[in-house]
């Protein structure tokens, strides 16, 4: 057991599990209380467009995914803010178009690139130092934003119309939450893959929401649940040679089922 901790890829995997759990706990809480889960799913899947384009143009895939996801988040923020009744349609379109762009660009790229699979299903054991640095940067940025603007973010998340009447720039915070969720989702894709990423942002958060009396407590509890699930999932993945992303999500789901059974018994 101690021996495997000496491997650099295992150390990176553990670091990334800790970092992504904290990010998913904080940003996932914002996503859920703002009822942006489907929106975040759309951004996650559209990121595949950036991955495909990056592959075609020969630039780093992660960079392509980040730029494309943030661009998509801003477009969605503008469109859905103006016409919230059409939100589902816009998300559906961006979800599918992003994936389609990605697939077409992969088709146009000569040769087969196995690395793409890690973006679809995640590979925590393939996380490198650069990914860790990005995660640390994003976590620090997220914490700074939440601490500085906690009251405004809380007001916008709880009652957007009232926040606007109080003079809070709701467009700014709506876009900020969406961009933050885009960045977080892209980082999490490395760990659990874009197909499973949305579960990481919703399952621990759902449990935390039920037992928390405030948003910041919800963020901490969600992060802790996510951390426990990620570390157990990682251990099982390494021990039984299973796909890491799927293992982590299934542990989350197991905790979720246990919670539902005991919470409703209470």
């Amino acid at each position: 057991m101690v021996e495997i901790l000496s491997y650099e890829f295992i150390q990176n995997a553990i670091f990334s599990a800790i970092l992504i759990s904290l990010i998913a706990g904080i940003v996932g809480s914002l996503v859920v209380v703002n009822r942006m889960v489907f929106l975040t799913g759309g951004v996650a899947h559209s990121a595949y467009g950036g991955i495909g384009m990056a592959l075609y143009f020969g630039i780093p895939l992660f960079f392509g995914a980040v730029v494309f996801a943030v661009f998509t988040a801003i477009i969605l923020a503008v469109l859905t803010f103006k016409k919230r009744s059409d939100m589902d349609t816009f998300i559906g379109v961006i979800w599918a178009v992003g994936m389609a762009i990605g697939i077409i660009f992969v088709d146009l790229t000569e040769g087969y690139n196995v690395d793409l699979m890690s973006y679809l299903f995640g590979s925590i054991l393939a996380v490198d130092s650069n990914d860790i640095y990005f995660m640390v940067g994003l976590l620090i940025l997220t914490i700074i934003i939440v601490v500085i603007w906690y009251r405004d973010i809380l007001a916008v998340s709880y009652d957007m119309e009232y926040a606007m009447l109080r003079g809070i720039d709701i467009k700014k915070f709506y876009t900020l939450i969406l961009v933050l969720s885009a960045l977080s989702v892209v980082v999490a894709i490395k760990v659990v893959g874009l197909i499973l990423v949305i579960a990481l942002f919703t399952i621990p958060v759902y449990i935390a929401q039920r037992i928390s009396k405030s948003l910041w407590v919800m963020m901490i509890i969600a992060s802790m649940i996510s951390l426990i699930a990620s570390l157990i999932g990682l251990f099982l993945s390494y021990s039984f040679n299973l796909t890491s992303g799927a293992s982590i999500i299934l542990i989350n789901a197991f905790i979720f089922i246990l919670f539902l059974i005991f919470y409703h018994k209470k």
Partner: protein
Amino acid sequence: MSILEIKDLNFSYEKEVILKDISLGMKEGDFLAIIGPNGGGKSTLLKLILGILTPTSGDIKLFNDSFRANFSRIGYVPQNTNINIDFPIKVIDVVLMGYTESKKKLFGYSKAEIQKAMEVLEEVGISSLAQNKIGSLSGGQRQRVMIARAICNNPKLLILDEPTASIDSMGQKQIYELLRKLNTTISIIVVSHDISVILSYASSVAYINRSLVYHQLAQYKDRVIKENEHFCEVELLEMIGGLHG
């Protein structure tokens, strides 16, 4: 002192006229009830007053100026149904949202602000629930929280949109009694369907159905309350001439 002055207000949405030639005013201490059928433009009028919508033509002045210049003097209680009851937030934190400006620290509120919020909760009769999660409260209690949030900033005007929707009759009465008490220091505008209740508390009524019929109620109030406890909107309008005016 003029609290609200609306002159020749018109509002259209995608070529459909929603409000036509509305002129209306209220003075300090007034309790104005806005009534009317669904789709008649009551909520639109409220959104125009609050600056959420922009008039097609006409003028709205609050305290002789715009809403934006006076938003700290106005408290607003939205419809009960608009609130997310699953949100992880305590009653006291909802009330603290009512501050427009704060001597805040980064993450939280000053002791004086929390103290004031507790006093407001005491005033609306639910200080014992301050640490409870908002979702655990009844509809009537939640509405008191919203009123506490609206008044913690010491407003001069309180605007309420259907404050007693989905609340039982006992809760409705308590809310209106609270509003009567607040009306001694705060002017009030309330959108409501509860005609018989409104007649017991409001000093004037504006009936909105695309256009406006406005009346002082004092001359009718005693008669209405004595004659019929379950007074309906049509009877009221016949009395004040709204159906023909």
